[in-house]
């Protein structure tokens, strides 16, 4: 890609990334949440790969990393849900943390934590899908 594209991508990526994090952590207050924010974050990564390019080997190692992150995020989500078996109530998926006040950033118990897990999961999953398709295309053309 041309230097202009690379420079603009460099400047934009940080802002896009921050915006994604903002959407994820405000998931229980505003529209959005884990899925939307995760999609934005994965957009930042995809922009970097598109602007700077990479060789296949590099992409493959990144794909392995992102798929591990994806699985770990799902396991974290499951752990949060299963913890409810042991903490306080014995009910699956119950909200065992203090609820706080409506409208504050730290409120709504475990829901922000679920949002963060989903956000990481979606970002990693979409990036993995993108990388898998790119790697497959490279393998066809060579």
């Amino acid at each position: 890609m041309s230097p202009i594209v690379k420079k603009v991508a460099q400047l934009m990526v940080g802002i896009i990334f921050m915006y994604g994090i903002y959407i994820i952590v405000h998931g229980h207050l505003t529209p959005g949440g884990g899925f939307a924010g995760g999609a934005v974050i994965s957009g930042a990564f995809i922009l970097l790969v598109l602007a700077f390019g990479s060789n296949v080997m590099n992409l493959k190692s990144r794909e392995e990393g992102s798929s591990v992150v994806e699985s770990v995020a799902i396991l974290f989500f499951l752990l949060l849900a299963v913890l409810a078996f042991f903490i306080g109530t014995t009910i699956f998926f119950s909200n065992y943390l203090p609820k706080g006040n409506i409208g504050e950033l730290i409120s709504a118990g475990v829901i922000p934590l679920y949002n963060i897990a989903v956000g990481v999961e979606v970002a990693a999953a979409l990036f993995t899908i993108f990388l898998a398709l790119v790697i497959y295309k490279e393998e066809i053309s060579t």
Partner: protein
Amino acid sequence: MHNLIPLFIVIPLASAFLVPVIGRLIKGFSKIITLTAFLCLLLLSLNYIFLSDFSPIIYKIGGWEPVENIPIAIYLVLDSFSIFMLCIINVMAFLSALYSVSYIEKYTGINNFYTLLCIMVAGLNGIVLTGDLFNLYVFLEITVIASYALVAFGTEKEELEASFKYQVLGGIATAMILFSIGLIYWYTKTLNIADISEILQTSEDHRLIEFSQLMLIAGFGLKAAIMPFHGWLPDAHSSAPSPISAMLSGVVIKAAGLYVLFRLFFNMYVISFDIGVLITAIGTLSMVVGVFLAIGQWDLKRLLAYHSISQMGYVILGVGMGMLILAKNGNKTLAALAIGGGLFHLVNHAVFKGLLFLNAGAIEYTLGTRDLKKMGGLYSKMPVTSVTSLSASLAISGIPPFNGFFSKLIIILAAVQARFYLLAVLAVVVSIITLASFMKFQRYAFFNTSAPKKVIKEVPLSMTAVMIFMAVLCLGLSLLILPDIRDSFLGPAVNVLLDTTNYSTVILGN
């Protein structure tokens, strides 16, 4: 024990996502964790047969209690019909996973295989347990996405084409099911199956509800591959790896298609005569046409796949006759006989069709072909495969000591007693043609003298052990005809479908 119901979904999901994380570091971890998880599920589901006092266990996810008798939480409902299906799913899943240990060696990406298998089982358990219409849709999609990927697991030409066909037809079915769920929500303003049932019983008939019923029959008919919607089944089931074929044919079309149809049309909608006629008609049609399509096949797994359509027809015929009798306020014991025959055939079909697909896998494993014309003389070379497939063939064609005979007998008896003479005659004729078709399979595969030149030997121990166990199960399930055993496993499941309104009163009463 009431708190353990979510484990049916948590255990397979956890093992599914532990496999890609830890399995990448430790070789062989994926097999061990999958088998352990499935063994836990198997013991848990068998445990509920003996524990349950036949009253449904209701589990509210998140602990949200109903407000003014309006249910808010997503309900997990474990009643006798669910226990019946859970046992079939988890027994078959464990046996398929055990069989896969040797079979899957020839493929690459073993970790992915086990991950997808675990996700599929999680989805199936979820479908059977959930009491919420939209949750049902979500679990259905989890199941079918995993099975799309598993059908295409070999990534050869045939697998890809079969999987693409399966996905397009599955996508249409999904859209229809979601549309129908939207219609039901529009009319009743609730998604809880029990709550919907109560509202539909008190309200008058409405065109929207009839439309949603037809959309549901089309959608779940596509998932269950009943006759007008069967196009994807022979391709998908014959292209998948054999343990997956056994899962797809033995469990997925039943849990994701027939279970949901029966549950919704008996326990959610008000039973109507028209829908009963429709269901019986498509059941009969798929029973008759499936067997005629099967008889000309030379590809072994494709032949078995067409027989799946035909045998599913028996199940739908039995349950559909029960629905007709119930809708006309007929004799309840007769309806129980018909529905019992249908469900009995459902569990029998899971076992013998699973076994036949595993036999086909064993033959493909050693010979590398599925073409019946290229086989022959395997009787002396592969004695275990030969004997087990003979017992499964006798079971599917309805020869007395095996389980298939008793379930077909009950369905035919019910048809005669309810004076559906034509249906009884058709069921007998289809059974005879099935026998002819399996005679062909036995003769060409095992008793033909023109043995192939290759040096072949029996498949590894884990595969033969599974096949022997399932052959014993084929004989053992005949015991379900005895009243004592029937009343602890099959009888309660039939009663759930028979007492159509009981489901909603029990669930909303808690």
